[in-house]
């Protein structure tokens, strides 16, 4: 495997190509545009397709069309663009069409800014569009993981016939780091459901309109069971020094790396601190957070968001077992020392120092 310096956004694009993605449907938006630019250069040289749509709405519906044929296809955008795509994502979920949607987050609401953010957590993990559905959400924390989780995303999408979202902060999209370039994926699951022209077989149908009551109920029941299966099989998280910890930080994406350093800082100041890093934001590692809540004294959600969004999942997971604190602001990636200072205040409040 080759080790090269890559921008996070480029690692996503290269990872997708190596995962067999041959259809990219994009629309420019900062800070995600490098993904489309990389695909525009690369796709024509490998027999793939790059299409620049006239809007995010068009791009996500191109994904719908491409995914229906069974091809590995994707799109990439950022917060405001993802909002526009939500109608299409709802249709993709109901059509059970596997695809990858990348969200390189910037601050909102509204036009917000172009600085990094994790404030798309709600629209990513709560379905985002209309109807009863979830999509798998993966949160990488390095350029390497931008590549690796992109490849995993395609695999999970095909395995469960579901759209998968890769969600990362603008910081990570534009961060240049060494990346071990993974081998090309050569084995793919069969897609007997794909719309490929029904010569010699019964027609396949991908449909999202179910007018009879029982039909819609059966469909939603089927989806509910699928989501249950994903919950039982696909939860991924990482723990760091949680065994003896009194104070547990919970952070994902680039914040998890920064929080890790803050854990070490706090430990050197005598506060037994640990970290839980959710890798799948949906399905959320409720079990892990709940287990650790039985042994720790307090938890802190650290997010690049002012209101705090993941904190609601921590509250659901802990069910009032421990007090939950919050550190976070929008549009700024805090450094470990700043977090350590805030942890000292929380630790004092909780009687941990």
């Amino acid at each position: 495997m080759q080790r090269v310096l890559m921008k996070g956004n480029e690692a996503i694009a290269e990872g997708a190509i190596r995962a067999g993605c041959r259809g990219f449907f994009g629309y420019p938006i900062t800070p995600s545009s490098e993904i489309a630019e990389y695909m525009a250069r690369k796709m024509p040289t490998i027999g793939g397709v790059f299409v620049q749509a006239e809007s995010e709405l068009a791009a996500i519906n191109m994904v719908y069309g491409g995914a229906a044929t069974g091809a590995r296809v994707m799109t990439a955008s950022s917060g405001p663009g993802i909002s526009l795509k939500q109608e299409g994502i709802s249709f993709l979920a109901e059509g059970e069409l596997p695809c990858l949607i990348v969200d390189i987050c910037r601050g909102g609401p509204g036009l917000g800014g172009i600085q990094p953010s994790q404030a798309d957590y709600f629209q990513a993990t709560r379905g985002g569009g209309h109807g009863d559905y979830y999509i798998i959400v993966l949160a990488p924390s390095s350029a390497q993981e931008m590549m690796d989780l992109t490849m995993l995303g395609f695999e999970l999408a095909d395995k469960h016939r579901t759209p998968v979202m890769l969600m990362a902060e603008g910081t990570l999209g534009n961060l240049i780091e060494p990346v071990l370039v993974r081998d090309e994926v050569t084995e793919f699951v069969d897609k007997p459901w794909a719309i490929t022209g029904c010569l010699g077989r019964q027609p396949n149908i991908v449909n999202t309109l179910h007018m009879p009551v029982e039909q819609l109920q059966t469909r939603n029941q089927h989806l509910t069971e699928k989501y249950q299966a994903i919950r039982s099989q696909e939860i991924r998280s990482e723990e760091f020094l949680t065994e003896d910890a009194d104070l547990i930080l919970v952070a994902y994406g680039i914040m998890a790396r920064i929080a890790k350093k803050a854990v070490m800082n706090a430990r050197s100041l005598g506060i037994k601190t640990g970290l839980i890093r959710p890798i799948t934001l949906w399905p959320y590692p409720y079990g892990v957070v709940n287990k650790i809540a039985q042994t720790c004294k307090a938890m802190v959600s650290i997010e690049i968001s002012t209101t705090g969004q993941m904190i609601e999942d921590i509250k659901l997971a802990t069910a009032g077992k421990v007090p939950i604190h919050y550190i976070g602001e929008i549009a700024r990636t805090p450094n470990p020392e700043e977090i350590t200072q805030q942890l000292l205040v929380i630790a004092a409040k909780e009687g941990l120092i």
Partner: protein
Amino acid sequence: MKRVYNLKQEVEKPPRLTGGHRLCAGCGAGVVVAGVLRALNKEDRAVVTNATGCLEVSTFMYPYTAYMDSFIHSAFENSAATCSGVEAAYNALKRRGKVEGTVKFITFGGDGGTYDIGFQSLSGAMERGHDMVYVCYDNEAYMNTGIQRSSSTPRFARTTTSPVGAKNQGKKQEKKDLTDIMVAHNIPYVAQTAPLGNFKDLHTKAYKAIYTEGPCFMNVLSPCPRGWDYPMAKLAEIIKLAVDTCVWPLFEVEEGVWHLSYMPKRKLPVEDFLRPQGRFRHMFEQGNEWMIEAAQAYVDQRWERLLERSGA
């Protein structure tokens, strides 16, 4: 409505787009917007609506504004709809005698926000007949996000999503003819113009568009030194070449009647316009002569059609 144009007199009016905005040196957009707003009568007020883009992030970075008039921006795809809402509310207030004086409604969008993602809301606003002017400052690509192709990018132009390499020679498709499409909306006034020479063409068309009742549309060429890759000081020269090669003819359509605004004394070959720009550099490489021929044939065909329509 006939007024004698005097540049000196016009520039002595207090500017409606003030200096100190953050647009690049050599960018056409600031010149276009200042030129359009200058056409407002001194005593009239305006509401400026702006689609997301270079212009928006450079002229209205809250809490700063370069506009002397009211300004509203919401998202990328909806500036014409936003302007429709403001205009409709104004009419309601006016009917009830709650606002005084004349307020004009002017929307600015780049080609991305006009030809592509904002086209639906533009078409809707024009069809409903709001008393507004939509001004497209056309720089032929998504410049604000780093020079990606748009449906306004001309064939062969290099952008980051229509790259030049072994498999690709810039954009494959011809530029969408938005001015024509807007004429097909049967609105009272459509104009194609550019900030040329003493700005008379831009000024008189902006005045007509602003003071004609009903929906009006202006498509204004707005070169971009970063995306088109020309030296900053060459802005005026590039515009002149676009017009004199008939790549960007100046014309207007009033109540369905076509009128050519400018007949070049000598129609220059299209390569005169292409050569100074880095985005067309590959067209001058050996073996690519056919590209220049194709570009010339396209311009000639469009120009002949325009001459026919305008009876020039």
